[in-house]
């Protein structure tokens, strides 16, 4: 982790019709930093994450990626998305393409990458997530944990500067959670900047540099894992922690 700010959110607001989900979020994520976002259902965790890469359109506030203010033009947004990878709760692999093609599709369609190089790189990424031998099968033949690892490789293929994880293990059977967390952990150690929305408190505590606790659309508390989990200051965080341990 260093001083370079990779993501900066300033006064982020988001409403769905009448319902105000984000009520002014300010957050700086530094290069190489791993941030976990925790909080109860409906606290706005996923919405915040989805606003960062404009899958949800913010109502107010500014988003800076790599010190660049992102405007609403589709060019800006597509460029931003190529730099900011996203991993979904439900994997969302492309079922009509093989594992290898899933990983290659980003570079080949968006960056018009050379086929042979894209393939080499995809194979390397699959090796990193331990799925090299599954390159030629279709996603439907994989377990949830394997699918999520492919989804991580697919996101990495775009050489993102930041990876966003939207509850990456929530849709998995308990015995498959570990293999996905291990891959995320390796990415964290390699210096990848990451924002992880998660319910895996043990993992958040272990892997994060800082933990954000969201409550009703605001950052209620932010700090190191030790501060958040062992020394929660706000009453709400205290009761949240008490409710999950």
């Amino acid at each position: 982790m260093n001083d370079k700010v990779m993501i900066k959110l300033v006064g982020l607001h988001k409403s769905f019709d009448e319902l105000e989900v984000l009520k002014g979020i300010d957050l700086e994520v530094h290069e190489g930093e791993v941030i976990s976002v925790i909080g109860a259902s409906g606290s706005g965790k996923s919405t915040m994450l989805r606003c960062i890469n404009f899958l949800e359109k913010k109502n107010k506030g500014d988003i800076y990626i790599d010190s660049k203010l992102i405007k609403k033009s589709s060019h800006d947004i597509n460029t931003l998305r190529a730099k900011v990878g996203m991993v979904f709760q439900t994997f969302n692999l492309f079922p009509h393409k093989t594992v290898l093609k899933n990983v290659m599709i980003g570079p080949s369609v968006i960056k018009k990458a050379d086929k042979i190089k894209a393939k080499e790189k995809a194979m390397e990424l699959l090796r990193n997530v331990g799925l090299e031998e599954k390159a030629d099968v279709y996603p439907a033949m994989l377990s949830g944990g394997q699918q999520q690892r492919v989804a991580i490789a697919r996101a990495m293929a775009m050489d993102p500067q930041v990876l966003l994880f939207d509850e990456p293990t929530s849709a998995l059977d308990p015995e498959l959670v570990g293999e996905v967390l291990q891959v995320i952990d390796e990415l964290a150690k390699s210096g990848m900047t990451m924002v992880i929305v998660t319910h895996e408190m043990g993992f958040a505590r272990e892997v994060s540099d800082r933990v954000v606790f969201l409550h009703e659309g605001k950052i209620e508390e932010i700090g190191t894992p030790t501060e958040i989990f062992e020394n929660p200051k706000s009453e709400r965080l205290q009761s949240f922690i008490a409710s999950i341990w």
Partner: protein
Amino acid sequence: MEHIVEILNSIGDFFAVVFKFAPKFDQAIVYTLELSVFSILLGTVIGLVVTSLKLTKLKWLQKIADVYISIVRGTPLLLQLYFIFYGLPLIGLNFDALTSAIIGLAFHNGAYISEIFRGAIVSIHYGQDEAARALGMTKIQAFFHVILPQAVKQSVPVLGNQFIIAIKDSSLASVITITEITLTARQFSAATYNPFPILFVAGVYYYIMITLLTKLLQWVERRLSVNER
């Protein structure tokens, strides 16, 4: 006993007529195939175009597509064919019978096919589009690389059904003087006063065509379902 002989005799007569007239349908079969193939191909093209119109954000383009679909679905094909063949010449648009029939059938199929495509496209889970867009794809890239291939696959069984209907609907072209299978059968019936064997021949020809198409569609479906398990 006498009764049984009588029945056997009439069966014999029946098939004598069947085999006598079956080869005389060659030109009729060509017409029916022509009508079917062109109305399916053109109908598919029209269907794709109309689906695209409906998926644009431009309200007036959507409106055009809606009006087209509602007219086609709201009126009988028979009337549509009459209108094109007998009605359009009144405003100076003259087509020969075959062209009129192909236009009419394609126009008709296009509306149903566009709804089939639209249904298949909206049935693709939004997470697919999100995943493609999150990688940095434009809307158009996401549509052509992620949504459309899945939608086409999804639409094959229903599309096949529509193609089968298209073959049978080609028989309506008989009302605008095209001597395809149905009209040919009617003419032979009138000439011989013996309609049943001849209608039987016509039925067999339709049945063969549709069975072959069904086999083809099953093969396509199998080929496309490789990625399901």
